[in-house]
């Protein structure tokens, strides 16, 4: 097991940003070449309009995260499974399905090892770009036929979907369902 030992520092003062454009070109080149060569990933913020931040390592580093560094494995109560099944619209209430879920959570647990204190989370690689605004003029629409073709079921010009608002089974129903399941 390994985790990203890399944290991008954000909000650094302009002083420590090297105003070198050569650096940007170099980075661009190195990223492009490593991509072409298919070697280990070289993380640079190509789309960022700021030059390369020296606090960000140029190469991703990997460290194994040992079990004792991780929080105790998550317990998944039955009603959470219930909720997840509903949200995901996927049934996984089998031993195999639950093992898969537990493994996925354990994998993500490694993120806890990364020290993110005082690091403002990043929303998007576009966050320092100006948001493009569009004029209020009609340019799209009128393609109902094309869109309806994509749907399995249609009636006249409507999409057809299963009925909404299907209520969850009651607690009792759920209990009896669990009794008969593999759990």
């Amino acid at each position, binding site marked *: 097991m390994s985790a990203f030992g890399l944290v991008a520092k954000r909000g650094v003062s302009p002083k420590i940003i090297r105003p070198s454009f050569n650096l940007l070109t170099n980075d661009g080149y190195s990223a492009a070449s490593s991509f072409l060569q298919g070697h280990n990933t070289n993380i640079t913020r190509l789309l960022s309009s700021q030059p390369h931040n020296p606090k960000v390592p140029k190469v991703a580093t990997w460290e194994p995260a040992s079990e004792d560094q991780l929080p105790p494995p998550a317990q998944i109560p039955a009603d959470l499974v219930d909720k997840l099944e509903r949200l995901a619209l996927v049934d996984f209430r089998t031993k195999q399905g639950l093992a898969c879920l537990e493994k996925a959570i354990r994998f993500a647990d490694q993120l806890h090892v990364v020290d993110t204190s005082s690091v403002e989370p990043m*929303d998007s690689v576009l966050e320092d770009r100006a948001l493009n605004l*569009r*004029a209020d003029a*009609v340019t799209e629409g009128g*393609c109902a036929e094309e869109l309806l073709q994509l749907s399995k079921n249609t009636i*006249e010009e409507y999409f057809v979907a*299963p009925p909404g*608002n299907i209520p969850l089974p009651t607690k009792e129903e759920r209990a009896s369902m669990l009794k008969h399941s593999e759990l």
Partner: protein
Amino acid sequence: MSASCAAASELLHNMNKQISSILYTKASCVIRRLSTSSSRCRSQPQPRAESAPQQLVGVVGLEIHAQINSNTKLFSGSSVRFTAPPNSLVSFFDASLPGTLPVLNKRCVDAAVMTGLALSCTINRMSLFDRKHYFYADLPAGYQITQQRRPIAVDGTLTYCFLGGKKRSQVIRKTVNIKQIQLEQDSGKSLHDDLRSQTLIDLNRAGVGLMELVMEPDMSCGEEAAAAVRELQLILQALGTCQGNMSEGQLRVDANVSVHKPGEPLGIRAEVKNINSVRYLARAIDYEIQRQIDILQRGGTVQNETRAYDSKSGETVPMRDKEGLQDYRFMPEPNLPPLIVYEDNASLPTGIDACQAVVVETIRKVLPELPSVKRDRLVQTYGILPEHSFTLVNEDGLVDYFEAVLKVTKMGPRKVIGWVIKELLGHLKQQDMSVSQSPISPSALAELLELQETGHISSSVAGQVFQEMWKSSGKTALQIVQELDLGLVSDTAQLHSICQKVVDSNPDEVNAIRNGNKKVLNKLMGLVQKETKGRADPVLVRAILQEKTLLKSDC
């Protein structure tokens, strides 16, 4: 609150009924007194002072979704229209096809900023977009793009008025705080086919720009909430940022209702949805407040739930959709960088395209006259009463009607306002019509008022002519006066003989006048008007009657 606790508080509440009514009689609508039977508590001993009697009052907060009046949707270039064939106003983005990206409509940002300014909000220089996840077929992406973390406008106020007091003629002014205004996408529409257990989806509305306005729980009853929504509706319509038609869903109101004792923490709230008119809003809220009070007084607990208003029964009923707390799994919208607005042109960074920039100062400059300013102007310009200005502005088109009448008549505004509000609006309300549907045009009413003002008809006849004009629209006031022979009788000889008849048949009254009780003359005048069906020239009649009674006294 546990059942026993609630029962105990009910007991206390009943015991304290007497004191509380003394304490709270003078309070305004903020503290709404309950009408509970007080017979039980009359003989109860006086409670201790610290368990000061307090009654349950309603607390109302509103969440309002206002559809932005724009040509195209919030993030796509497909048109916004209320009536169109299903799925004809849908782009690939609106249908959430993979690979499509949102492109923000500048008009929607301008509208939100303008609305924020009109409601004295702080406009956030930077605001962010987030995804709010929920699964309905009318939201095919599985999430709605909204502004959860940092909305475009925050911390505003809305000042609203309503007519209160004993005669409902007193303008009561209140303020509600606006927590925030956020930009978000509307969903499509679902048609439920219960018979075949399926849902038909029309995505024409999916992605239309909404402004969600969150009002703090500063209101206490349906009437206040209705007045606040009406004022907001007028403001949005004045700004042109939302057409505000509730029946077409351009303005949708959800009410968060709870009850508590003043000073104590807020009670558990229920959310009331499905309200599609201002009138129903007031009824739904008052019903819900009373329902919760009844539950607590019976020792029960209010459920945190979503309820729908059934306008037929006038009740709120539980909705099935929410099971416990919903987890929307908010996350930043990765496809949209932060939205930046600029204070003025000077603060624009170099190199930015001017037609791309949202500049607060520019929008502030083009803010139109807001309803509150319009009311003040009407009061100052025409010398009418504040409550009249309130009624004028509250009815769509009535201010224009009033001003159109004024332009073509010599009658003073204070007389005209009486006609417009009492006669015209009275008739319109009676038949549930809008000002634009009035069978009497402003110029026709002006002609009628002119006939009265110049002394051709009496005021009572003018009322009669108004009725005729209402029934047979198209006929002018003058035509009706001539047809029905309603012109003022100013023929002195004719009036003399009528007056003589009245004087002769009422010797007692004449004697009273002769003995100095001049007021009795009015009674005789009334009798003369009765004879002439209100058509006698009152000035002439008074002179003739005075002459005749005095003559008699001289005899």
